């Protein structure tokens, strides 16, 4: 329904937001970047919840940069052509 299309937009916008965040100005201040050494960041598994979230944000940023360009272009074209 209307819910499903809206959900695609919402998820795309949220992932855009995660990808855009500035690494040194914002994430390091919040200490949510892997460079500002989160102490329990030794093992990749069985780390704390916070370390997992840091890892997740970093991996989303590195992985989704390029597919996001494609997806955003598609959505822009769709919105322009089909209103």
């Amino acid at each position: 329904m209307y819910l499903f299309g809206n959900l695609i937009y919402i998820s795309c916008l949220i992932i855009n937001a995660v990808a855009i965040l500035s690494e040194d100005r914002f994430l390091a201040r919040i200490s949510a970047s892997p460079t500002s050494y989160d102490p329990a960041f030794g093992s990749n598994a069985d780390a704390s919840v916070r370390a997992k979230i840091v890892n997740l944000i970093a991996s989303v940023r590195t992985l989704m940069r390029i597919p996001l360009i494609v997806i955003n272009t598609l959505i822009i074209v769709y919105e322009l052509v089909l209103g």
Partner: protein
Amino acid sequence: MQRPTYGQSPPLHHPVPQHVSTVPQLRSPPPLRSQSQLHGYDGASYHQQHQQQQQQGSAPGNIFGQYGNMMNDPGAQLASQFGQTAFKHGQEYLEQNVSRFVNVSALKHYFNVTNFYVINKLFLVLFPWRHKPWSRKQAVGPNGQESWYLPPRDDINSPDMYIPVMSVVTYIFLQTVIAGLDGKFQPELFGYIATTALFVVIVEILGLKLGTYLLSISNQSQLLDLVAYSGYKFVGVIVTISISEIANVGKGTGGWVGWTVFIYTFLANSLFLMRSLKYVLLPENNNDSRVPMQTMQTGETRAKRNQRTQFLFFYSYIVQLLFMWILSRP
């Protein structure tokens, strides 16, 4: 009465297609023949050609004679051989490619159900408060090392895919029937409802996967188990929708009856999920007694266990409430 005597029944002679029939069935069987000859005709079509000719020889009448003239034509024989090999190739292609995407043998395990299991499982989803042992039974392999879960046929606690698949289809049909009774039916409604149901399941599984990743729950059960557990809520949703549709004349999960049934099925489903997923999401307690000190290093502190329990509670109650409410809307 022409009933056969009860007792030992003869082995059933279904025509089992070992390979494609060499005979394309271009004619329907003659309508005035007796039952046995019809069975003989059906069984003959799946046998070898020479056997079929033997049966033709044994069957009386000119009607099969016309059929035999067609098979003596070499062009028809070539065509039937070609069709047979083409079909075989198609089957092999399908088997190779589908088995790459869909794990067919794993799926078969989930559909290995009996009537007894289905009825008891439905009762369990709708009334889980009396059920005692919730753990799944395991069968030990011959060398004692490997152990796999028993199929749903032998274990009432094992999740199956039959009930979720059936209940999703029933849910789609029920929603469209109710929309039709309101005069609001349109053929796109099937697609809308199907995508809503699919999206609910997908979002729920994604949330569950995210939760297991964040809390570092090592998930030993397969993805299909979680899909099956997620599909059980459709049973409660169907009950809610049908009862509230009968009670209120129009649609509404509004009104006392609708909300009462909704709350009841929601609580039943949530308890069912909590008890079943306890073995999936929370770590086993028997590990702690053997190695009490080393589990602290792997992070199995009480805080983590509390976190996981909270997550399980959140998932079973609040997430299910949201999704059941979404599914119960008209």
